């Protein structure tokens, strides 16, 4: 799960615990010797500063300079695999976005995309995450902004005023995840038919099984088949 950064993790790059992590099923009575390999349980944590990544440190410093209430706005800051993720509280999203776009030492001109992710087991209980990928063309770097939302209050302010391109991205995220972007118009389904029920990309939205023309057999839906995780 994305915000659950491995305590000692693949972020370090080569080798490390990845090898333990990469292969084998647990509890399957596997006799190959590969199963049951150790996997470090993830924890919910911020990456301590300095991040050890120049770009990420620069972005954070600049943000701190021009946005005094930063500690209020941010829940966590994660640097993983060289990518900076700012977990922003919903109420501060617009102001953070404005700073990210306009500050000369940040200048994230381009919103690459808005997408969502659904973590039903999120320890904070806010399973829906709206994920914004920003790119600074001037400084050639990217940053990820993430907002966690609860299932029963899936509202996040729209960033369409800051980056007009967010329009369709937000519509898609609304369509597939049910995240409502407020303060904008035309938040309509874009991928699914407009009378569709439910939001298909949520984890509890199943794929259907397929009936087979052989003695009434039914291929089970993919998510009801065996899985290894």
């Amino acid at each position, binding site marked *: 799960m994305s915000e659950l950064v491995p305590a000692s993790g693949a972020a370090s790059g080569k080798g490390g615990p990845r090898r333990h992590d990469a292969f084998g099923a647990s509890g399957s009575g596997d006799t190959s010797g590969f199963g049951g390999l150790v996997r470090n349980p993830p924890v919910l944590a911020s990456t301590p500063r300095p991040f050890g990544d120049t770009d990420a440190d620069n972005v954070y410093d600049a943000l701190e300079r021009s946005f005094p209430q930063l500690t209020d706005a941010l829940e966590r800051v994660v640097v993983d695999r060289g990518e900076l993720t700012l977990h922003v509280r919903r109420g501060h999203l617009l102001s953070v976005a404005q700073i990210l776009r306009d500050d000369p030492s940040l200048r994230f001109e381009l919103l690459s995309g808005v997408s969502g992710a659904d973590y039903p087991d999120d320890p904070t209980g806010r399973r829906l995450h709206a994920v914004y990928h920003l790119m600074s063309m001037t400084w050639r770097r990217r940053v990820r902004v993430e907002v966690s939302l609860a299932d029963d209050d899936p509202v996040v302010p729209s960033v369409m005023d800051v980056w007009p391109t967010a329009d369709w991205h937000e519509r898609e995220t609304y369509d597939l995840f049910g995240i409502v972007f407020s303060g904008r118009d035309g938040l309509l389904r874009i991928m699914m038919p407009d*009378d569709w029920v439910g939001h298909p990309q949520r984890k509890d939205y199943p794929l259907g099984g397929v009936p087979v023309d052989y003695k009434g057999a039914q291929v089970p839906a993919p998510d009801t088949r065996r899985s290894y995780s």
Partner: protein
Amino acid sequence: MTQASDTSAAFTAPAGSRASAGPPVDDVPAYGDAYEAGFTESAGGRVYTVTGGDWEQVLGGEDYSERLTVNMGPQHPSTHGVLRLVLEIEGETVTRTQVVIGYLHTGIEKSCEFRTWTQAVTFLTRADYLAPLFNETAYCLAVEKLLGVTDEIPERATIIRVLVMELQRIASHLVWLATGAMEIGATTGMIFGFREREKILDLLETITGLRMNHAYVRPGGLAQDLPDGVVPDIRAFLLDMPKRIKEYHALLSGQPIWKGRMVDVNYIDAASCIALGVTGPVLRAAGLEWDLRKTMPYCGYETYEFDVPTSLDADSYARYLVRLEEMGESLKIVEQCLDRLKPGPVMVADKKIAWPAQLSIGTDGMGNSLDHIRKIMGTSMEALIHHFKLVTEGFRVPAGQVYTAVESPRGELAYHVVSDGGTRPYRVHVREPSFVNLQAVPAMTEGGQVADVIVGVASVDPVLGGVDR
């Protein structure tokens, strides 16, 4: 309108009252309000309203003028698949363009979550079906970044990736040229474009085994090495193609009608492009030499010699020229790739990731080599088990999320991949350039003529398989 079907149960006031207003449209408020998203506080809690429009709102509320609503698509010869454009025209002038997508939504992103990391490639390759290798590469780069093996990918694999991607870029631009020319009525342009694309598809078929949807690039490397004898074929193509590009210039570039249809048509400047998130040739034709291969290199692009063609005109003709130039630049890169190719592995050495099979081309296409089968069946039970488990169960990828972008023929193609540490992707999101770029179509077409809409859509070069995913 009193027919309160079960579906309308959830309407809140604005929607319902508008519905009851019916045809007399005098009091219908400004068009935009119909789409306001909002909420009301009520006894049971907060009620969110997400309303939509209907033909009533599309057509009504307007005072009379000689406007006609033309529903262009989703079945229309010039909409690149199943794009739907709802045009409001006044005479021949377009006053409003609405872009409707979703007719090809196949749920690729969702499907990926139910297959192994490797199998997801075969879904994603079908998203942008004109540039499948870019999808594969971008996704595999993401998975490799998650795995932390980015630096362990063999050089030969990376070079071949670049090679096939650049060939594909030419092929994709050729399809754009062909379809764009066809839509303007230049049938010969169409045949010319598809003629050369066919050659590239032949090359790619030789390399990957398939003309489209290759599933050639895999996490960790490639499905297989270059087959014997393909390098001379590519070299022959490299010799031939520049002449063909000259032919396109001769047939189309200077032609008064061609220029008349494209020059100063569908203008969109760089600032507007960035505001709308538009990348790729459209942005470069607006003057900004933004090309991820140069600006945020991946796959070792920083080591190749090539130029980024730009133009300042920001119209359809500039996009046409930029794409033609890009084909030439891609040829240069392909040539450098061929020069750099050295024998070596094409898959990461880590046997926990690398596909266990030693693939060879058998009589039935791609398959396991007999030696390998003999070895694992006869001598090593563990190898057989390993093979079995890796293929059926797949490898695990450490938890985390990454975002990798490549420069596809249409712009920034990026993958946001989340892993929960399991053998399946937890979430795969495709940042599709066609999807984003299509948002610019209204800005590019409103105020132009009906025929310009066709040119405009063609100049964006959307691939609906990628738009809808």
